[in-house]
């Protein structure tokens, strides 16, 4: 019910919203929770396991009960806390985990079956018959479990990622955080102040406290205004610091305000990486419940939350409120309620020596032992020294004390310390390097104490950072001592809830102990206590106390479970912002990309690059027709292929030749200037890393090419070998992959074509096979390499990348006049298979030079990377699988890559496996399928017929094993 006056709400601005289809009204400044309470809605959700009716418990992000779903279609968002949802016009929330309705939930029958659903029951049953697990039991369990639902549709909203750096990050903008930020800001430090609430002030917004004679919330607003006006301060409200990471890195989630979020294209949430030289944790404390029979009934709430609803939102959660606690702080609740004109049924304090000056029925040394009512609280039973009293009440404000919000201090495996005076855990200093706790999260409970500690800690941090802190005046504020006598559970019959959402009761913890799940981690995992969406924020300490009691240990010896990031749940979309669609990885385009698209070529991924698959001509209806034509075009005329994606590494200096001799198995120091050589590169473990050609452009100048896939790896490798192993060599290494556009010009008419565009023509004598040198291409300085990956007479011509598109168009245009044209990756692949040239389909990281028949390329005269390891017996075992060619000889003519090879008569089993097919293609040149394969002792088996079996595609073929070079074995075409 809304109170007549007060609160930080704008009564002039009414906001209509819906909950489960019904229309209600609230005010600007409300949360969904405060607005629901203002409309006297008590039942807001159902629990996870027993589907118990549940109401609002808290006023913060730790809320375990009031989880709702917002939005329709792709915008549907489950598991939002009503307690932190800002009310906005048209907001339509739906309850979750209830069918057919929140009021009548059929699965509430689980509550009646609760005796059979105790801790870990599922480990003991559903085992027979085995086949029913996937068919029946598991689907039933899955359907009953879960909270809200995803829409199943792709996210259509924008999320963002951001980075920030600061001197001091202040986490939490309550009294301690505000004083810390103010102190740091005035000293000139760069400050970021984060608070998860939509406004700063923390508990000052929820309490009826005064600072320097003005309401606490007003003081907070004033300080915040001052801070926001300073250029060295960034105040980030609606921002939860979610995790502490190494070297002062913090994750933080910023939520857009409803108004901001509604703007088209606005980021709904932004995930921040904040790098702070120092951090001050001023995260406050969370109140904890007391476990008693049926303490989960709607209307049983945290006392601090009740004060927040009364003071901040001018809402009373009940008309006759009972207050129950074990500490002085609880008494404030009764005082605030009375001040707001709300009827207080009773104030119950479990401490026998408690006193009060308030004019309310007062029970000391008494405990609430049961709640009555089902969908809303109707009465409570009070155990006093003289017996049980029953009081009619519609709201119980309970306080079992406060737990400092130590979570972030545990993100690096630090454990908090038990503080018996507070009956709670406090942070272990130094648990996060560079982070200091101040205020309630550090166990300092009075407002004055928080203000003072915030300023003091900031001053210490500033001195460390080399700033001079100015003197700070601490405002006048209450400094009441915090006195508490622990009360975890109230003895009695029935079930008393610890973990509300997961339905873990005191009995469950005791049963876990009885079954010897005595370690706190065992208890947690067995009962699921602390594994709900609040991650135990409401239940951990009490559950620990119950376990300690059940196992006859103290709380410190029992230990704690670990708090891990994130502090509060974060959407995948926010942390993965930018990844959706094409944003996941960079896209690399060659300079001929547009021309290829214009020619109708389907582009396919080659690592991060895009390359044309084939260039369809009118009348061609399948890729094979295009591919066959392109292959024949290269064999008979001339083809053009953009090969710029291959890695190009420029290597210069007096030590360049020596470095190449060390990284390649073969020798490059003997390579004459103006010549190119094929090189094989091993990893230090003796397996093939990559292959490619390297050209000697000058005495101390080489240009290495790598495969597209291994370009980065090879660059890294060269830098490592140079810097880490041969720093004595005077050599510079630089990737120039993107500086040069390079095209293959391949086919018998390739020289004719080139001579049509080169400023000075070439011939076989001046430019023989494996020659290289500078050329002028219509006035542009380029490079020409006579190398061939097709087996034809071929060249690769390179020009600076800015001329790449022109070059490609020029070459293709000319080629087309000569009966040729562009060819794509499919044709390139067939051409190289016909020649038995390898790619990473063959050098897949497990092959040796020996396997691919290149053991002769391993120089005996010098050391090189991989030489020693390549000599290991296992790497030269004659029984290894060796590269062979395959030609179909049986009725089935199709070969498939990924098929395995067997002896003709052998069964296709692992034991009989003889090898596998790596690459296949249809050769229009030879009019047959060809395959490359690895076969045990393959080089000795040329001529043998083996059986290829592809179970997956249902293909079996007989193949003849042969040399992997199928076409032009002596290489005359490339030379001629």
């Amino acid at each position, binding site marked *: 019910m809304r109170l007549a006056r007060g609160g930080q709400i704008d009564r002039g601005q009414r906001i209509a919203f819906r909950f489960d289809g019904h229309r209600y009204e609230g005010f600007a400044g409300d949360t969904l929770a405060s607005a629901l309470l203002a409309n006297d809605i008590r039942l807001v959700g159902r629990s996870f396991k027993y589907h118990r009716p549940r109401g609002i418990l808290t006023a913060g992000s730790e809320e375990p009960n009031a989880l709702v779903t917002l939005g329709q279609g792709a915008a549907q968002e489950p598991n939002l806390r009503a307690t932190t949802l800002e009310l906005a016009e048209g907001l339509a929330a739906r309850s979750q985990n209830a069918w057919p309705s929140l009021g009548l939930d059929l699965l509430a029958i689980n509550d009646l079956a609760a005796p059979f659903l105790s801790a870990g029951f599922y480990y003991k049953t559903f085992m027979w018959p085995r086949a029913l697990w996937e068919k029946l039991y598991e689907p039933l369990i899955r359907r009953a479990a879960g909270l809200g639902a995803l829409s199943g549709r792709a996210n259509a909203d924008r999320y963002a990622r951001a980075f920030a750096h600061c001197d001091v990050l202040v986490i939490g903008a309550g009294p301690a955080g505000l004083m810390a930020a103010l102190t740091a800001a005035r000293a000139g430090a760069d400050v970021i102040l984060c608070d998860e609430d939509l406004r700063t002030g923390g508990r000052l917004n929820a309490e009826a406290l005064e600072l320097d004679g003005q309401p606490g919330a007003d003081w907070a607003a004033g300080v915040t205004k001052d801070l926001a006006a300073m250029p060295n301060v960034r105040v980030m409200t609606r921002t939860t610091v979610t995790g502490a*990471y*190494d*070297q*002062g*890195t913090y994750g933080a989630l910023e939520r857009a305000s409803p108004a901001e979020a509604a703007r088209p294209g606005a980021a709904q949430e932004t995930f921040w*990486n904040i*790098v702070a030289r120092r951090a001050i944790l001023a995260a406050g404390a969370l109140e904890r419940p007391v476990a008693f029979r049926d303490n989960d009934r709607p209307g049983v709430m945290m006392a601090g939350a009740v004060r927040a609803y009364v003071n901040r939102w001018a809402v009373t959660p009940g008309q006759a409120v009972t207050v129950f606690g074990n500490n002085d702080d609880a008494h404030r609740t009764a005082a605030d309620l009375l001040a707001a004109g709300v009827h207080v049924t009773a104030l119950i304090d479990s401490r026998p020596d408690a006193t009060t000056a308030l004019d309310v029925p007062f029970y000391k040394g008494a405990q609430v032992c049961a709640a009555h009512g089902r969908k809303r609280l109707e009465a409570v039973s009070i155990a006093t020294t003289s017996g049980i009293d029953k009081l009619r009440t519609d709201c119980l404000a309970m306080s079992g004390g406060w737990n400092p919000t130590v979570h972030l201090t545990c993100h*690096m495996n630090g454990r908090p310390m038990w503080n018996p005076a507070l009956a709670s855990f406090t942070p272990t200093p130094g648990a996060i*390097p560079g982070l200091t706790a101040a205020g309630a999260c550090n166990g300092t409970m009075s407002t004055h104490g928080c203000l003072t500690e915030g300023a003091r800690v900031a001053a210490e941090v500033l001195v460390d950072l080399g700033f001079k802190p100015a003197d700070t005046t601490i405002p006048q504020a209450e400094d009441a001592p915090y006195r508490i006598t622990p009360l975890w559970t109230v003895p009695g019959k029935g079930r008393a809830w610890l973990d509300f959402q997961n339905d873990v009761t005191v009995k469950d913890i005791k049963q876990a102990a009885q079954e010897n799940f005595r370690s706190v981690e065992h208890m947690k995992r067995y009962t699921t206590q602390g594994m709900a969406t609040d991650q135990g924020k409401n239940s951990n300490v009490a559950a620990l106390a119950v376990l300690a009691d059940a196992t006859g240990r103290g709380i410190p010896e029992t230990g704690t479970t670990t708090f891990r990031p994130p502090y509060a749940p974060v959407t995948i979309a926010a942390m993965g912002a930018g990844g959706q669609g094409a944003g996941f990885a960079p896209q690399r385009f060659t300079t001929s990309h547009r021309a290829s698209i214009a020619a109708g070529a389907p582009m396919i991924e080659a690592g991060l690059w895009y390359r044309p698959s084939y260039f369809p001509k009118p009348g061609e209806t399948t890729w094979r027709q295009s591919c066959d034509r392109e292959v024949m075009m290269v064999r008979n005329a001339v083809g053009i292929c953009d090969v710029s994606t291959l890695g190009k590494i420029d290597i210069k200096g007096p030590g360049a030749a020596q470095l190449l001799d060390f990284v390649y198995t073969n020798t490059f120091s003997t390579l004459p200037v103006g010549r190119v050589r094929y090189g094989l590169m091993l990893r*230090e*473990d003796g397996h093939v890393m990559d292959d490619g050609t390297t050209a000697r452009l000058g005495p101390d100048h080489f240009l290495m090419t790598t495969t597209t896939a291994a370009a*980065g790896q090879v660059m*890294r490798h060269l*830098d*490592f070998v*140079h*810097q*880490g*192993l041969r*720093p*004595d060599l005077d050599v510079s290494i630089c990737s120039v992959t993107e500086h040069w556009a390079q095209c293959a010009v391949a086919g018998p008419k390739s020289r004719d074509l080139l001579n049509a565009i080169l400023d000075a023509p070439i011939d076989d004598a001046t430019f023989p096979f494996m020659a290289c040198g500078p050329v002028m291409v219509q006035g542009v300085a380029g490079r020409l390499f006579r190398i061939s990956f097709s087996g034809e007479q071929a060249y690769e011509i390179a020009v600076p990348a800015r001329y790449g598109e022109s070059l490609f168009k020029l070459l293709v245009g000319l080629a087309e006049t000569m009966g040729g044209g562009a060819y794509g990756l499919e044709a390139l692949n067939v051409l190289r298979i016909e020649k038995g040239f390898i790619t990473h389909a063959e050098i897949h990281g497990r092959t040796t030079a020996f396997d691919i028949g290149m053991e002769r390329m391993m120089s005996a005269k010098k*050391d090189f990377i991989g*030489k*020693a*390891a390549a000599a*290991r017996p296992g790497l030269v075992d004659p029984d290894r699988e060796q590269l062979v060619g395959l030609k179909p000889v049986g009725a089935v003519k199709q070969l498939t890559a990924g098929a395995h090879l067997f002896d003709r008569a052998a069964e296709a089993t692992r034991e009989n496996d003889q090898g596998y097919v790596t690459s296949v293609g249809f050769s229009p040149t030879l009019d047959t399928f060809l395959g490359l394969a690895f076969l045990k002792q393959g080089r000795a088996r040329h001529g043998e017929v083996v059986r290829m079996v592809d179970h997956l595609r249902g293909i079996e073929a007989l193949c003849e094993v042969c040399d992997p070079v199928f076409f032009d074995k002596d290489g005359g075409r490339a030379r001629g």
Partner: protein
Amino acid sequence: MRITCPICGERDRREFYYQGDAVALRRPDPDDTPEDWDAYLHLRDNPAGVTRDLWYHEMGCGAWLVVTRNTVTHEVLGAVLASDAARGAA
């Protein structure tokens, strides 16, 4: 995690490629025993505590670094150029 590159200054972990133990700088001679090569390529002290490992400032200056670091706390104690370390080891 942040590492101070001797050339570029303090940078985010995203800029670096990690290889492994800095033992990789102490390459055996070609005719050392298979055991020596096995130790170099495969065996690791793998300390739970301070270690020296190799990082490559791939998205930065291209320098290989030897970083002294704690594997339990992730504290970064320092970084030097691998080329300097290699010269020292030679």
